[in-house]
């Protein structure tokens, strides 16, 4: 017989009811109001990559929301399956774009992850490692150095050392990854660089951690493109990781500590806008206001900080950029990083720029808005599933016939490049800033 949901079962009190969960702060419990917003129509199913993989309702946004609701209602405890499903989710937020009801799924799944973490006894190993890894720059430096040696030599002992620090998944493909940057951009670039055309103002650039370890060149290109367009660029050397990796894994405590360091470092520069060329980082920096909403000392500064953050393509499209004199030589397509198109709804801006610089060489990519499987550290934790999503992406790239794929996120760049290399495809995967700067350079 059908049972009507009363919505208020005995169980853990859900703290987020009155306390402004609508304003969207990260709450250690899953907000009942956000959950109630889902009217389970199922329109999210058609865009969910994990539902496409398993065909099971519990691997869909609608199913996950129902499971969260059941946990909050006290119908089920936090089980292994529950935890698995929350982490199996890519957090690509394609469902959020598809959802007519406006369910803020990203916030829900992230708060569910935090809920799992806080309700677990002890602190997970993954969390400790992530904290160590991203908290300072030194962890990243050591790992990058070891990876560089491994990529050059395949030296077994390095693998053993690395295996203790980062999951084995990425090592399987480490030799396929684009060659790590020999030096971080932040080490090469001075703290201030003057514009190359009449000055329009001052910007500060986040170099990121993954971005800088793997795509330091793209960081340099980003700075060059901005300078080319009349911007004075600051590269605050005191900046740290944005905290997104920790935040998405449910460790907001570490994320908040990182946010505070960045707020201080960027304020110091006096820049009007903070430019970020990595989709994941820009999305997270825009959330600092919410992340620190309850911090008495930093809530206002965090809000102001987030208000100044612009993603690279968003910024140059909206403020105007000099169109290069020539077009790209190779055929070009654009892959939409989840944290751009779904999280920040930035799609037209990079697309228009890509179309502009490639002209007749532009090719439309099928399922351009589908996740490539990289998803932060997802491809390390869920190696096999990520590989299936990557195959789907590569098939679409093959079909569209482009030889250059442009994307705006280091995770996507690395993931697609590794797949292309593995599949012996004649495809180069580059950041938009790199594509643009090459054309600028060719004019000289």
């Amino acid at each position, binding site marked *: 017989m*059908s*049972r*009507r949901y009363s919505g208020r079962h005995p169980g853990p009190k859900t703290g987020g009811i009155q306390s402004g969960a609508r304003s969207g702060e990260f709450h250690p419990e899953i907000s009942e109001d956000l959950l109630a*917003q889902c009217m389970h129509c*199922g329109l999210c199913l058609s865009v969910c990559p994990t539902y496409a993989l398993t065909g099971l309702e519990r691997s869909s946004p609608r199913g996950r929301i*129902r499971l969260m609701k059941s946990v909050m209602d006290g119908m*089920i405890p936090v089980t292994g399956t529950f935890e698995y499903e929350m982490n199996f989710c890519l957090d690509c937020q394609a469902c959020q774009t598809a*959802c007519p*009801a*406006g369910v803020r799924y990203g916030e829900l799944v992230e708060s569910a992850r935090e809920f799992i973490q806080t309700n677990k006894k002890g602190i997970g190993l993954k969390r400790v490692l992530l904290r160590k890894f991203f908290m300072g720059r030194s962890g990243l430096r050591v790992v990058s150095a070891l990876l560089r040696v491994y990529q050059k030599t395949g030296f077994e002992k390095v693998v053993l050392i690395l295996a203790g620090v980062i999951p084995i998944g990425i090592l399987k493909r480490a030799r396929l990854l684009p060659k790590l940057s020999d030096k971080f951009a932040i080490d090469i670039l001075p703290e201030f660089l003057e514009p190359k055309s009449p000055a329009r103002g001052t910007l500060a650039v986040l170099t990121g951690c993954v971005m800088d370890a793997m795509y330091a060149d793209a960081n340099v290109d980003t700075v060059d493109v901005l300078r080319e367009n009349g911007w004075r660029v600051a590269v605050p050397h005191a900046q740290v990781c944005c905290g997104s990796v920790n935040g998405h894994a449910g460790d907001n405590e570490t994320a908040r500590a990182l946010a505070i360091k960045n707020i201080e470092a960027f304020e110091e520069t006096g820049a009007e806008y903070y430019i970020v060329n990595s989709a994941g980082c820009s999305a997270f920096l825009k959330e600092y206001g919410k992340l620190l909403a309850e911090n008495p000392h930093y809530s206002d500064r965090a809000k102001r900080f987030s208000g100044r953050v612009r993603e690279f393509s968003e910024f140059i499209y909206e403020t105007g950029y000099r169109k290069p004199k020539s077009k790209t030589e190779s055929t070009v397509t654009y892959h939409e990083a989840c944290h751009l198109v779904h999280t920040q709804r930035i799609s037209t801006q990079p697309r228009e720029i890509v179309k502009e610089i490639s002209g007749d060489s532009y090719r439309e990519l099928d399922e351009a808005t589908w996740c490539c499987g990289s998803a932060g550290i997802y491809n390390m934790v869920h190696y096999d599933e990520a590989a299936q999503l990557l195959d789907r992406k590569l098939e679409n790239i093959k079909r569209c016939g482009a030889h250059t794929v442009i994307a705006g996120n280091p995770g996507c760049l690395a993931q697609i490049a590794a797949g292309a290399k593995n599949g012996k495809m004649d495809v180069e995967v580059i950041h938009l800033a790199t594509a643009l700067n090459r054309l600028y350079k060719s004019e000289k």
Partner: protein
Amino acid sequence: MITDGTKKRLRELFGKTNCLDSMEDRIAYSYDGTALLSSLPDAIVVPSSVDQISRLMRLANEEKFAVIPRGSGSGLSGGSIPSENSVVLLMSRWDKVLELDKNNLTAWVEPGLITGKFQTLVESHGLFYPPDPGSSQICTLGGNVAENAGGLRGLKYGVTKNYVLGFEVVLPTGEVMHIGGKNMKDVAGYNLKDVLIGSEGTLGIFTKILLKLIPLPQTGRTLLGFYDSIAGAAETVSAITAARIMPAMLEFLDNPTIRAVEDFAHLGLDKDTGAILLVEVDGPRSAVEEDAAAIEKICMRSGAKSVRLAKDEAEGMKLKTARKSAFSALARIRPTTILEDATVPRSELATMVDFINITAKKHDIEIGTFGHAGDGNLHPTGLTDERDRAEIARVESAFDEIFRKAVDLGGTITGEHGVGLAKKKFMESLYDTPFIKLMRQTKEMLDPNCVLNPGKIISVSPRCEGALPKSREQIERLTAKMGNPSEAYF
């Protein structure tokens, strides 16, 4: 609960990985797209052959458990909500096109195929499958046949049943039956095909479906008429019909719906607009231009403030997609959306819309109305919050009145969503006793143990032994034994 012994037999039949019975999976299959209804199944099975489904039905009859067929779970009348002692039969992985016959313009498909994917595929061959439910991006063709789904193009092209030529079906007893074929004319025997279409999973499980296709119209044009009030939009609908123009789509949105859709889709619609008519004409290019111009004039004459013509098919598609999101977008206003589909003869459209608004006011609730104006198929949607029990009760009383009014106007309680659980109690007011009796007998004859999707559309008579219960106390004792007393038998 089904017994461990039964579960063991299910595992033997489907294999361990295709039988799910964890609490998480049971929760994930406890609901569909219908508001307020949910109930846990005991297990979920994923079949891989017709024979397995047939044997499942035999087992169900033997062990007396219920089987609930399910596609994507996007139904809006509770048709795939599990009942007590039930196993969900998941058909969503049966998603192949088995044959596309371009000489006969037919296609054999599996029931789990997503409607929208099928449409895209046939359109790439210059063919057309017109039935177009709002949920086409996610609903399955099997579910469409089971519900006899309608959608946005019903006015000109009809509904799902007009495109079903035949199927293979597993009957409740486990027998496998074949109906129909590629013949455009076929009058051999009773038309049992139409008994099974729209049977809401209570009379059979479709395992293969033969669909009719038509040539893809050369072109289409979409336009929007903006009105201060609903009256003008209703007048336009009558005027278009009177002018002998047959649009492919004639859709209507009221002000709350416009606001919600604009919030989601950002089309630049004026949020103060009282009502919008979305019209699409399709066919040969010359006729389309002529019809579009004529409709534009009719809109203006009937009191439209302005008319906006989609500049190309891409923009038209955007407008139609936005219209399809209406139901879900309304959840932006209030989290629980109770969607109904009272349908009246086209001429009564304005009367019905007025009555809906008066009733909403009377019960102090908010109703957003949109729907297929050309079909008289309205979707008044109660905007509420399931956590507010008092308001939910008022919404239910309002809909009681709305349904009774629809029936009084010569309409029906559901145009396309099905009866399922949600509208079961209105069946009596719609049909006379012989009809109800014949329906019940049909169900009893095909499904003697009532194991296939029981309790949907109608309930079969309780089998009583001894004297019938007479006093209130006796009835209560009996219904308590049988489950929830609110599940009224009639």
